[in-house]
């Protein structure tokens, strides 16, 4: 992932600059070499999905397998398209939603341009505790959709083990819990890294090739709400934002990316984020990852607000924290994180949907934080 490479490979379809050695376009997923067996097609190996939360029909209370349209909320007809707006219905891997509690929900969507959804998300919540994990598969490596899903679930399960119902609950005063959750976050990212490696080995064995040959990889970002405390952990450029109803919005994570390094070196944000190498990440999860320890940050909110965990498919259209705060407030017509996350994904698709989009939200409020 060296930014020094002088070869200028561009995607034949969309003209995006390709990372050296990349087999697929990071922008639109087009195969950059001779079309391989993986080009555009779903992976042969998929992991079981946890049951997706389906909205019960308000009239009948029926939460049958009638699927909702990701674009307009209408019903997907038996012919596979929305009965109202004609948008194609998506597979469960292409579009899924989770809502572990009334105040925690997320939507993970393929977007418009990519042939498959390499983003993944895993959420858990109970009482005043929530864990939100988002992993963004690197499109230039095949099977990253499998890797990202395995990673996000492994990390969520570790975080739940440190939660109030878990085996090694983080407890004590706020400062002690910050330390505890930082350790938990590193344990979660390591477990996620292991899961990616495991998935990669399994896939390599299935395909009869070496695990180091173009292995799948993904980013990692997680946030934990523990009563009055929020702790974020990350590798790569998926993000955590804290967006309070009053007061300045902030991005808790700091991208591990070429763009961020340039910003740190003094290049203006807008210029750095639109450069061809902006999306080259400097840390990731995968068999070829030099280290898998999440970097962490914590905050103690002073009032109610939205905790947003998202992939670059969303923040590419709305990068800085203040703009993101305005965007979320515009679409948060109620305190319902599910409808707000769905609206954010629709918005990103309307902007072009150039990448997979994941938006996971927790509505953190004094009543929730005060329960502890």
């Amino acid at each position, binding site marked *: 992932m060296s930014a020094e490479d002088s070869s200028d490979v561009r995607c034949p379809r969309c003209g995006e600059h390709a990372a050296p050695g990349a087999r697929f376009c990071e922008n639109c997923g087009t195969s950059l070499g001779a079309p391989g067996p993986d080009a555009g097609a779903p992976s042969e190996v998929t992991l079981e999905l946890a049951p997706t939360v389906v909205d019960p029909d308000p009239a009948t209370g029926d939460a049958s397998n009638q699927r909702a349209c990701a674009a307009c909320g209408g019903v997907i007809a038996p012919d596979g*398209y929305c009965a*109202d707006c*004609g948008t194609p219905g998506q597979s469960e891997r292409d579009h899924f939603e989770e809502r572990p509690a009334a105040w925690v929900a997320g939507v993970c969507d393929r977007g418009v341009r990519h042939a498959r959804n390499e983003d993944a998300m895993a959420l858990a919540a109970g009482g005043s505790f929530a864990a939100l994990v988002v992993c963004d598969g690197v499109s230039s490596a095949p099977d990253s959709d499998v890797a990202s899903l395995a990673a996000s679930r492994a990390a969520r399960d570790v975080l739940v083990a440190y939660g109030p119902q878990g085996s090694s609950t983080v407890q004590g005063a706020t400062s002690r819990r910050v330390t505890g959750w930082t350790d938990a976050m590193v344990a979660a990212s390591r477990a996620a890294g292991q899961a990616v490696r495991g998935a990669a080995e399994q896939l390599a064995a299935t395909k009869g090739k070496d695990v180091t040959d173009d292995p799948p990889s993904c980013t990692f970002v997680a946030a934990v709400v523990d009563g009055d405390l929020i702790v974020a952990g990350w590798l790569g450029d998926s993000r955590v934002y804290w967006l309070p109803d009053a007061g300045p919005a902030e991005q808790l994570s700091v991208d591990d990316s070429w763009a961020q390094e340039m910003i740190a070196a003094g290049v203006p944000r807008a210029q750095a984020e639109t450069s061809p190498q902006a999306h080259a990440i400097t840390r990731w999860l995968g068999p070829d990852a030099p280290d898998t320890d999440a970097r962490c940050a914590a905050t103690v909110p002073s009032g109610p607000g939205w905790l947003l965990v998202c992939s670059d498919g969303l923040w590419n259209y709305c990068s800085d924290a203040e703009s993101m705060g305005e965007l979320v407030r515009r679409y948060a017509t109620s305190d319902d994180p599910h409808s707000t996350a769905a609206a954010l994904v629709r918005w990103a698709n309307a902007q072009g949907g150039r990448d997979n989009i994941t938006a996971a939200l927790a509505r953190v409020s004094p009543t929730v934080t005060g329960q502890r």
Partner: protein
Amino acid sequence: MAEFSAEVFQNEFLSDGATDVHAVVSVTCTGAGAGAAAGTAGPAGPAAGGVAEIVAVDTSGSMQGRNMEAAKHAAAVAVDQIPDGTLFAIVGGSHVATRIFPYPNARVPMVAMEPGARAEAKRAIGTMSASGGTAISTWLRLADELFATVQVPNKHLILLTDGKNESEPSAHLDQMIANVTGRFQCDARGVGDRWVVEELRKISTALLGTVDLIARPEDIAEDFAALVRKSVSRGVAAVDLRVWAPQGSQVLFVRQVAPEVDDLTSRRTEVNPLTGAYPTGAWADETREYHVAVRVPAKPVGSEQLAARVQVAVGDEVAASGLVKAKWSDDSTLTARISPEVAHYTGQAELASAIQEGLAAKAAGDEATATVKLGRAVQLAAETGNDEATSRLRKIVDVENEEEGTVRLKRNTAKLDEMALDTASTKTTRVRRA
């Protein structure tokens, strides 16, 4: 039982920002004739008992002579072709309409065909004589009254005239056509060269039938026989083409393009806010093709969108459906292609209007417009391989350059040749599929 299938031909790829989606939907019905021929009447069964036939023959003074004798013979032949069990009646039309058979004093307005009725009907037809004027609205009204007394799904009128509708204001006829639309189907035939193509076309178009010219009286019988055979083979009544288009879109047109051009757009009735139904009448074992155009809001490159669901509905049951899609792409090799079916039928529909507009201009003495329109028609007929249209056009114009569509109007053309070109203008050739 009859089965329908629908096949969609289109190029689903749209360039960035494009909004108009075109598709040709080919609808095929099979198994309709079997039920019709079986003659077992059932409530919904396509049986001989499911069809009612009325033959309305012009008995105005102008029919006197060969035409009247030929029409009487044709009506008798039609009676021979009507299968036993089929409800029927014969109407004579002048400035008033008269029920010829069942006799005016009979208590039932329509009777089921059987050998005795057949012999008696022919005797009644033999007594018809020519006198009076022509008011076709009265013929349609009587047919409508007779059909109203029977409960069968397929009601079919054959209407024959030799002259202009001269005994009433044209508004009368227009009003009557509007009144009876949807109640029965009508094939209209003109014999000789003194009738007006546009008048009969109004009737047959609204009543989901055909219009044709019978140049020689001796050919009427064969044509009537074919019309009756075709009508009783239509085992499926009241078929609608339904077109669903997504929220925020607009159906630009729905046009039957084969076997004949027939614009259905204005005949839409709403099934629900997103779906319109277009009546197509009764079906035999046959294939009809439809050109559907929908305007959808443009979506980002890479998006896919269903632009239309085209369904065949028999009553309230959807019997077949086809999906018309839109996929936005920035690959011009994909988006530049035009579906051969769409191109072919776009040309054929333009051919029909070029012929009709050209002939109308010629009749109005506007030779410049006529020359341009008929020249374009010659060009389109050649491009789309419509040899029949080409040979009919060559009787009206001298072709200088077929490829460029340059022609000269012929002097002293036969009226019959112009009428033949006009009535045949809507007949299309099917696209050749590789």
